């Protein structure tokens, strides 16, 4: 092989490398413009979505806030008064404050469950909203409603499992909160 041939081969290799590099840079550039275009498209889409959401918000009727608040206040307050009356009654029988309050809780839970069973609690909830959701009777409602409705799926996967679709998260996060606060309290002690 002649030396000049070697040079020629090297030259070829060099040219090839330069060409490769160019196409690489070109591709890189393409990718960059593509990315920019994509980002522009995405922001445009987001803008369009925001604009549409605004239109929807303008046209969608708002909940009757004042009426809802009044109902929630009165019904929520009355349920609490009922709880207080029951607790007072049991305290009057000579029970400790703690035990009387436990009785009140149990009885309210029973009432919430019972009226859900009768199909009346959801009628109350339609008007009272949070007034019948936030008290402990609402917690009972959230247990009975799915349990009853999923009875057709059997007693294990229906009643047993679905009972906790809403109450489950409440228990989980309640317990986790109690654990964390207990832990902090124990460390600081």
């Amino acid at each position, binding site marked *: 092989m002649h030396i000049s041939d070697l040079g020629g081969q090297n030259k070829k290799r060099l040219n090839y490398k330069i060409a490769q590099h160019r196409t690489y840079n070109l591709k890189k550039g393409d990718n960059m413009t593509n990315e920019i275009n994509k980002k522009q498209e995405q922001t445009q889409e987001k803008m369009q*979505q925001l604009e549409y959401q605004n239109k*929807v918000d303008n046209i*969608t009727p708002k*909940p009757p806030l004042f009426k809802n608040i009044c109902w929630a206040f009165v019904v929520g307050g009355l349920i609490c008064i009922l709880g207080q009356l029951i607790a007072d009654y049991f305290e009057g029988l000579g029970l400790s404050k703690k035990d009387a309050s436990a009785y009140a809780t149990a009885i309210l839970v029973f009432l919430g469950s019972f009226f859900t069973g009768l199909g009346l609690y*959801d009628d109350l909830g339609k008007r009272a*909203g949070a007034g019948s959701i936030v008290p402990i009777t609402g917690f009972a*409602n959230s247990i009975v409603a799915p349990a*009853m409705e999923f009875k057709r799926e059997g007693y294990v996967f229906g009643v047993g499992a679905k009972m906790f679709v809403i109450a489950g998260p409440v228990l989980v996060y309640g317990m986790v909160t109690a654990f964390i606060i207990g832990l902090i309290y124990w460390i600081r002690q």
Partner: protein
Amino acid sequence: MNKKQGMQSVVFANPPIITSTANIVGPMEGEGLLQGYFDYIMPDNLNGLASWEQCESYLMEYAIKKAVAKENSEMEDIDCVFAGDLLNQLMSTHFAMKNLKRPFLGLYGACSTMVEGMLLSAILLDGGFFNKIVAAASSHHDAAERQYRFPNELGVQRPPGAQWTVTGSGAVVVSKLGNGPRITTATIGKVVDYGIKDPNAMGPAMAPAAVDTIWQHLQDTERVPTYYDMIFTGDLGSVGRDLVIQLLQEKGVDISANYQDCGCMIYSEEQDAHAGASGCASSAIVLCGFIYKRLMTSKLKKILFLGTGSLHSTTSYQQKESIPCIAHAVSIEM
């Protein structure tokens, strides 16, 4: 001959005929605005059956049998059935079809299922494959509510923009020969998603899909809205209806004079259904009763009928995805 016209539409060479329709509803729909336009009103939402899902199967079976009986045909005359509902894996439809024992293709287009079935029927009939096809759709308020939202006995408030899922079913018999209004064109919709995530805002989620299909239909067929006596959408409710009018106005098309949504035609104000009706049966029961009678008596001659479907699932909603929607259209002319 190519029957496709424009981007998404077909024009039928031998427009198939809607020879018969039938519908059935629950008690609440029966007390609503369209009293007297239903073949059967159930006394309650169970109708003596063991579950709401079974009741929905019954609804569909009834509607199909009734529609076939009304035009003096036998079930054996039906070459194929297109049907669907809202429940997971088309539960209600499949149990109804088990009893009917006819060749069957299940469709899921959510609340656009009725129109999806009609346009497929028309295509197969015009293509000369079959002579008689049934298209049907059903929904059941309590069955849908417990699948998509909350248990029925849970004491929650529905926001004022929410819609009420219709309990009912409608079926149409589409034939190659016979008397009745004809399906002349069809426009197949695209999935449209404007980023709405609230499952209580079905109307606003679906409105852009309806607008997309109406717009495309007018483009493809080179028609103006006034070509039709009425344009109907399936179940957008009052909020969605207003949005459709507004969005089309922005595109320079005014349909406010001859447009109505089936979801606004079922319940009266006092029934507390909030923004109107929704569900597969919303468009189905209105078409198979009120609209069909109007067509047969020539009070309406040309209509554009759209089915609008929101294609979300409980999983997609819980994973915070937005609601993809679709709308299909058929034009029906007497």
